[in-house]
Every structure is written in structure tokens, then in C-alpha cells.
């Protein structure tokens, strides 16, 4: 799978963060196949709808925790409960660095936990690292 074909699902309710994340991804030419969900319900619709199959699933989910309606933890739990998304890589990308959030995320099956830095330069670096790792270096699960 080529990098350009690789798909990202960004679950982010804050439009600023969405824009900044997309900008950072664009900066590294990874923004073409980004799908944005603005809350947990939308994210689950995309991931767990009836016509979803392994071929339409993204390569990685960037998941914010603090979301309207259904929060990130619940999204993660629902994903891990479904056969299709059980092994889908999920990177939690959030403002929180609460221990409880970190622990809960890993317990629910998150593959990575990254705190969004306030410093945009650091944020861009972080997004680049995520993209490079999960879309280029990482070998995803075989379907």
C-alpha cells in the first residue's frame, strides 16, 4: 500500500485542531486520504456501518478523547468489540496527559498515546512522526 493511498481517520471535534492537524499532515504530504469525524457517533458510523468492510477501513485512526456525544474511550471500546476494527491501529491524540486517560486508553486497546503539544512546531513534528510511523514504517494487520 502506497503512502498516498493510505487512509487516515481523524476524529476531532475542535475545528482549529482539525485545521492544524490537517495542515501538519499537508506539510508532509499525508493529507490526501484523511477522513474527519467530528464526534464519536460520526466516527463509529464511519467505522462500524453495515457496508463497511476491511477494504474501506482507514490504516490508522487519530482519536481525540474529549468528544461530544460519544467520547474517545467509548469509541475505542466499541471498535475493539467489533471483529472488523479489533486490530485497527488507533493513536490517541489528545490534550490530556491525565494518568487515568493514558491508562484507560491502553487498557481499551489503544496502540499509542500522544499528547498534543501547545507549541505548534512540536505539534507538526509529532504529526509527522505519527504519519511516518503508522503510514510508512508500520506493517498493519493482514486482512
Amino acid at each position, binding site marked *: 500500500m502506497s503512502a498516498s493511498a493510505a487512509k487516515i481517520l481523524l476524529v476531532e471535534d475542535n475545528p*482549529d485542531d482539525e485545521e492544524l492537524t490537517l495542515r501538519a499532515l499537508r506539510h508532509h504530504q499525508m493529507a490526501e486520504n484523511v477522513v474527519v469525524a467530528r464526534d464519536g457517533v460520526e466516527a463509529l458510523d464511519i467505522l462500524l456501518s453495515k457496508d463497511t468492510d476491511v477494504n474501506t477501513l482507514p490504516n490508522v485512526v487519530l482519536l481525540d*478523547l474529549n468528544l461530544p456525544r460519544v467520547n474517545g474511550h467509548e469509541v475505542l471500546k466499541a471498535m475493539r468489540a467489533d471483529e472488523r476494527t479489533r486490530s485497527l491501529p488507533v493513536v490517541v491524540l489528545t490534550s*490530556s496527559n*491525565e494518568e487515568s486517560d493514558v491508562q484507560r486508553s491502553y487498557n481499551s486497546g489503544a496502540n499509542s498515546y500522544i499528547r*498534543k503539544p501547545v*507549541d505548534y512546531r512540536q505539534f507538526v513534528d509529532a504529526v509527522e512522526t505519527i504519519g511516518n510511523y503508522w503510514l510508512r514504517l508500520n506493517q498493519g494487520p493482514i486482512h
Partner: protein
Amino acid sequence: MSAVEKKVANKPPLIRRFYFQLVISGAFVVAIAILLFTWKVGSEQLAYALESNQMQAQALVRNTASVAGNHLVTKDFGALEELLLQAATFPDVMSLSIMNSSGAIFASVQRNNDDTIEPVFNVQSMVLPDSVEEQVLVLQNTMEFWRPIEEGSLGWVKLQYSLDSASKIQREVWINGITTALFAFVVSVLILVVLLKKPMRAIGHATEFARGLYKNTGKVMPFEKSAFEIEQLEHALNYASHQIYSSNKDLTDIKLALDAHAIVGITDEYGKLTYVNDKFCDLTGYQRHELLGNKYSILSSGQNDDDFYNTLWQTISMGNIWHGEIENRRKNGSSYWIETTIVPFVNKQGEPYQYVGIQTDITERKQATHELKEYQEHLEEKVEERTHKLQIANSELESFCYSVSHDLRAPLRSIDGFSQALLEDYSANLDEQACNYLNRVCASSQRMGELIDDLLKLSKVVRSDMRASNVNLSLLATRVFEQLTEREPERKVDFSCASKCMVSGDERLLLAMFENLIGNAWKFTARTENARIEFGVEQEEQGGVYFVRDNGAGFDEKYKHKMFEPFQRLHSNEDYEGSGIGLATVQRIVRRHGGEVWAESATNNGATIYFTLGEQA
């Protein structure tokens, strides 16, 4: 009062009668003895007198017979008469006669009542004895002697001899004896009266004294002089009196002490009160006469069930001591609590005849216990309530902090991010001033991000649970120092550390504390030559005062009271960076360990932060 007591108390002393009897009987015995002696002597004297009279009379009659024989042969009757007159001069001779062999009287003399002797002419003849033997006939007051002359061939001599003298002797003996006996009786009475007077008085006193022993006054009876006979009795009585008094005094003293301390009530075997002390009356509110004779159950509160009283009665009626707490009721109806010990007193058959109850008023204690219990229950509620409120507050704080960390950072990221975006994408359209401003916006938002993070750390210190374990402070300090050295390997800082400072505490919090303390020391020695950081301990025996000392910039002592307030900074940000949250965090960590923290310094002379950690492991 028992019959014995009545006898002792009411009967008059018998000692006078006894005294009288003793004297009279003593004197009587003496008199009897004398009379017995008199009787014996009298009898002996009489026998002796009779014997000597008989012998005298016999000699007289024999001589007269012998001489009269000669006169008869010669038929000299004048001489015969003369002989008789002469012979009759013997006292006690009443009459003397000479008869022929046929009994006809030749001559006869007799004594008259006036004691003169004269011949008697009597023609009548006498009846002679049958045999020719000498005859002695004892008659009343007289003896008759018959003597044959020449074997009766010439005739007989008859002598009538008076026994008056012998009787007189006997009579005199008796008169003397009785007189002596009477005299002896009187003298004996007098002597006994005198001799027995003192002993009897002493016995009288002793009796009186013994009669008074039951009153138990502890008196000692005075010794009667010259009454050695009863000295032992006196000794014995005095000893008994002393013993009774002292043992009774012991009992009285103990009773006094008991009454002074305890509430004492005594009942008979049926539970009727027979004695109550003042305290008993005071406590129950009853007068003594209202209680005595009544059953103890008059005080029953009804709060204890039948089983309770059954057990109690069973215990004490078996002769066993019962101990326990009882709720009773006063006269006015209010209840009181006593701790009581009931001691049964048993008779020889082992059956209780009275019960002595020794009690202590524990009403106040009971009330206090009750109040304390209520208070405790209430306290638990309070604590629960507070805990609940605290939990609510904590969870609110938790969600607040979560919001802060999450929601406040997002706008900052936007500010910084879009400022960066402007700088990157539109720098061509911006002059230098605009770029400078945008850079400042970025720097400020980043700094605010750090502030938020520090604030979160501080609140975490307060919120997080303490996980106590044995912590090696020396190791933590060294680890923090090593981390700093790794981060800035170009700095040369001399570090000295006290070894093996072990405390009980939360390792994570204590690590955060050292990160702040040694981090500060590291920061403020940045411009010091020969920088030195020291971790040490003083006054180890009192639990330990720990310190982190540096030779860096120090601070102005004037502001040291502000040092531990959050966001309080004593150095400009240009000189030394920082949020001003570090020492506030340290203070919270130290306080959570029950310790205190304080600082000492002079500007440019280094700083020392001291801290204690409360109870040490």
C-alpha cells in the same frame, strides 16, 4: 436484744450475796469444827472421869469393907460408925451402908442436900446381890458398889457414888466449847470480812467491767491493790478488752472508710433492707426509715428483665459473690446506675442470712459513655457527610483540572499554531515588527501552556492518593541530580549527598519534591562558579531535619514568607526561568507527609531549603 444481752445488762450484781455467803459459811465451818472438837473432848473427859470415879469408889469400898470386917469381928459398932463417917467425907459419896449377911443394916451414913454427913438409922433390910462377887451397878447419875466382907460371911458394904462431878466436867467442857465456837464464829466473820473485802471488791469491779465489755469503749480496768488473787483475771479481762476494742476499731475504721467511699446497703436473707448508709440515702432520695424493712426491689427501675434478677438471686443465694451494673430508680422516679458487689454472709450451715451490697454510683460514667456513643455515632455521620462533600469537591476539582488540561490548552494551541501558520505562509506579507509580534504571541501561548502544566502538577500533588512505603531519600536525590546532569552535561556541579536517609512516604511525591528542590538548586547555580549542591540531614535523633543547600543566587530573606505561595517568583524571568510553582508544590508534598518546610538564604550567598517529614519510619 437477745436474752443473754438482757441478762448482762439488767441483772444487778450478785457479788454482795456471794460475799455474805462466803463469810458466813467460812465462819460456820470454823464454829462447827470447834464444836466437833468439843464433843470429842467432852466425851473423852466424861469417860475418863467415870473411870477414875469408879476406881476411887472401888478403892474406898474395898478399904471400908476390909476395916469394917475387923470392927465386925470385935463388934465395935461405934468404930464402925466412925469408919463410915470418915469414909463418907470423900466427895461424891452419897451414902455408905454396912449390912450383915442377911441384909440387915448395921450402920449407914448419907449425905444431905446441904452437904453434911449424918448417920442414918434404918431398920429395914436390903436385898443382897445373888453372888458374893463385888458388884458395880451404874444407874442414872449414880453408881452403886457392893462389896462382900469376908466373902459375905460377915456382911456387905454398899456405896452409893454420885456421878455429878463427871457430868459437871462434861457440862463445863461443852459450855467452853460452845463459847469458843461462838467467839471463833464472830472472829472468823470479822477476819473474812476484812480479808475478802478487797478481792471481793475487785471481783465486783471485774464483773462490772466484764458486763460493760460489750459496749466496747476500749477502757482498761484499774488494778485493785492487794488483790493479787484476781490479778490474772484482771489481766485477762484487760487483754480481752483491748483485743475486742482494737479488732472492733479495725472493723469500725474499715466501715468508716467504706461508708466514706461506697454506697452500702445490707438486706436480710429475704432481701429486706436492714441497714443503709448515708450515701445510700443520698443517692436514692429516700429517708432511712423509708428504706429499712422494705424490700430492695423498692428501688427497681424495671429496666432489667426477670432473667437478670433471677441470675442475680441464684448467684447470691448459693453463697456466691455477684458483681455487676444495675439501673435503679430514685424516690423521685429518676434513674441511676450503680456498679455493685453483693456479698452473701453465710451461717454455719452455709446458708446466707444477710447480703451486703457495696455500690458505686456510675450514673455519670454511664451518661458520659452514652453521650460519647451518641457523639461517636453522630461523628461518624458527620465524617461521612464531610467525606461525601470532600469527595464531591474532589471530583469537581478533578473534572475542573481535566477541563483545564484539555480545554485551556486547545485554544493555546490554536493561537500558537495559527500564529506559526501566519509566520510560515504569509511572512512575505508581514514586516519585521509583525513577525516579532507573532513570535511573542507564540512564546506567550507556549509559556501559558507550561503554566497550565505546572498548575496541574500542583493540583495533582494535592489530589493524588498517598502510597506510603519505605523510601530512600538519598537515592531519590542522587537520581534527580543525575537526570539534570544528563540533560546539561556541560555544567560542572559538585554534588554531595547524605547516605541512606530512609523515610516512610510516597515515593512519587517525594521524587517530585526533589525534582523541584534540586531542580531549583541546579537552576540558581547556573551562574555560580564552583557550583555546589548538597542534600543532608540534621538532628537525626529527633526525626531528622533534611535540607537541600546550594551556593547559587539565593534570595532576599525579606520575601521568604512569599516563597512557598504559588506563582510567587523572587527572581525575574530573564535571570532565571520558572513558573513559581515549584516550592508551592514542595510545601504541599511536605505537608501531606505531616512535615514542614522553610528556607534560609542571603542574596548571592546560596539558599538552603529545610524540610521535615513528620513521623519517620
